[in-house]
């Protein structure tokens, strides 16, 4: 039912700009309702209740819908509340404002060709050249929620070997996305490039900021270059920029920044969205010198990468928050160094 509901939403979105086929929509909604009634009927059998009549089944189905829609949960600390439901994270709620938020993993499939000209170029170690203009979304499955005095987590996995843990800590004003990606499956003989997208309702007018090798933040604008008129051969890769520590989008009230734990490629291809590339596995050489496909393996399996992003939501007009964000960027780059030493020979008092 959830899948059908998603399909309906997708259809509504798809038809938003065209003429909405109302009849078709009504048909799908009716089917959804029938599906739910079917579930209620099987539940009725399973529970060994006396057979319900059609009206009672309909009521049970309505109730089930209400319960499913209300299936929401929160991660919460002193600074923020993260609202989640069965589709994942939906909102970031701060004391003075609320931002829509969706964290979604996608993958791009790599082009392949004989590298004789620009249009026959393969996606490889040097070149990011996706086959499509829209990435494939991966479907999440909730794999547990943890709540405690220090950390609260929401966990999700996908069947394409990627998993996320969304985490907030007590006393810290940022939201952490810890991800494990790989081994990227290539049984279908298609190279893939995994990205994460943070979708928000920030109105950034196609503008986003990336840091320049840890120096100043540079403004990037979709389909524009400051010095010349631009026609891009590669509409996706042409907008990818290096992100050493930080990428951000902002409007009047909100600045969403993602702080990375390593250098990554990043962009903002759609309004209110930030995209960062996490992992790549490609099956063709791009003929720029390396002479190999970017298909690294360890112990016979593709590499797995684990990393984290910190997501900050600040008011760009608040100087205190802006300075705190700058400090957090530096302390994410220069993380504390942790040593763990055995002290079996040292009791607590001696220590």
């Amino acid at each position, binding site marked *: 039912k959830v899948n059908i509901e998603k399909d309906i939403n997708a259809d509504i979105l798809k038809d938003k700009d065209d003429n909405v086929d109302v009849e078709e929509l009504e048909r799908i909604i009716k089917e959804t309702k029938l599906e739910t009634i079917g579930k209620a009927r099987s539940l009725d059998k399973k529970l060994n209740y006396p057979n319900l009549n059609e009206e009672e089944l309909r009521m049970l189905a309505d109730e089930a819908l209400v319960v499913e829609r209300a299936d929401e949960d929160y991660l919460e600390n002193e600074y923020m509340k993260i609202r989640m439901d069965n589709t994942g994270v939906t909102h970031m709620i701060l004391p003075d404002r609320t931002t829509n938020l969706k964290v979604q993993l996608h993958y791009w499939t790599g082009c392949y060709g004989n590298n004789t000209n620009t249009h026959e170029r393969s996606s490889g*170690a*040097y070149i990011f050249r996706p086959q499509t203009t829209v990435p494939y979304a991966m479907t999440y499955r909730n*794999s*547990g*929620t*943890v*709540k*405690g*005095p*220090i*950390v609260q*987590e929401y*966990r999700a*996995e996908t069947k394409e*070997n*990627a*998993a996320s*843990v969304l985490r907030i*800590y*007590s*006393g*810290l004003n940022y939201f952490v996305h810890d991800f*494990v990606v790989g*081994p990227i499956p290539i049984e279908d003989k298609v190279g893939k490039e995994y990205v994460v997208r943070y979708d928000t309702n920030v109105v950034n007018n196609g503008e986003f900021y990336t840091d320049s090798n840890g120096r100043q933040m540079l403004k990037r604008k979709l389909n524009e270059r400051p010095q010349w008129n631009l026609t891009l051969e590669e509409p996706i890769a042409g907008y990818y920029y290096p992100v050493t520590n930080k990428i951000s989008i902002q409007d009047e009230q909100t600045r969403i920044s993602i702080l990375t734990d390593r*250098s990554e490629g990043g962009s903002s291809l759609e309004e209110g969205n930030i995209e960062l590339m996490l992992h790549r596995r490609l099956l063709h050489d791009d003929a*720029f*010198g*390396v*002479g*190999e496909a*970017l298909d*690294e393996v*360890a*112990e*016979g*399996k593709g590499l*797995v990468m*684990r*990393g984290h992003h910190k997501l900050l939501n600040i008011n760009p007009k608040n100087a205190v928050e802006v300075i705190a964000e700058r*400090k957090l960027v*530096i*302390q994410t780059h*220069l*993380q*504390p*160094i*942790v*040593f*763990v*030493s*055995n*002290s*079996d*020979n*040292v*009791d*607590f008092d001696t*220590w």
Partner: protein
Amino acid sequence: SFVLNELKSAMGVMQHHDAITGTEKQHVAHDYERLLDAAVEDALIVARQAFNKIAQRDALKQPLFSYDRCRFNESSCPTSENSRQFVVTIYNPVGWMVMEPIHVPVLDGTYEVYAPNGEKITSQLVDIPEPVKKIPTRKSKASHELVFIAKLHPLGVKSFYIKKTSKISKRDVVNTNEYYGNINDYWKNLHDNFVEIHNLDDTVDHKFKREQIPLPIMKVDA
């Protein structure tokens, strides 16, 4: 300094544009790994000596602290996994106070974390997500991570003393998926702890194993 020079030299090689972007050939990538690994391993001599120097331990005697490399990216740390008590020392490289969440890979159990002033601080045991446990190269017994917040002074070093007080974790935090997934482990832990508390011979298959240990009460998050 000649030990640290090795690491500096390796880091110099890593400035090559192929090393930075990953456009080197595969066998070159392996060579970079070899270079870095050897350099990091040698540089740790300095850390090992420093721990014992601070503890005023003569270098000729058996060192007070032993130190193995941890792989926090795989939630693996041989020291914290195998010790009943260990010290976590953290260096803050920036010039202001930092509050940093620390995740230490450990086995299931109950742990106490002490700040440098000797006060017990709040900590939380969280199970390691399944996808991390399934990383093909991961070789670790750790099933959980001990999480606490370290308040670090500018450019300061702090040590936290951690000891394991029981093999059974306090189940005030319950992840339902983990709970059902590891119910056999939970039984085994209950048994082991019972044997340990009553100082019994673990090799004997005691009857109480099935008779005296009550079933854990399932706490299900609706």
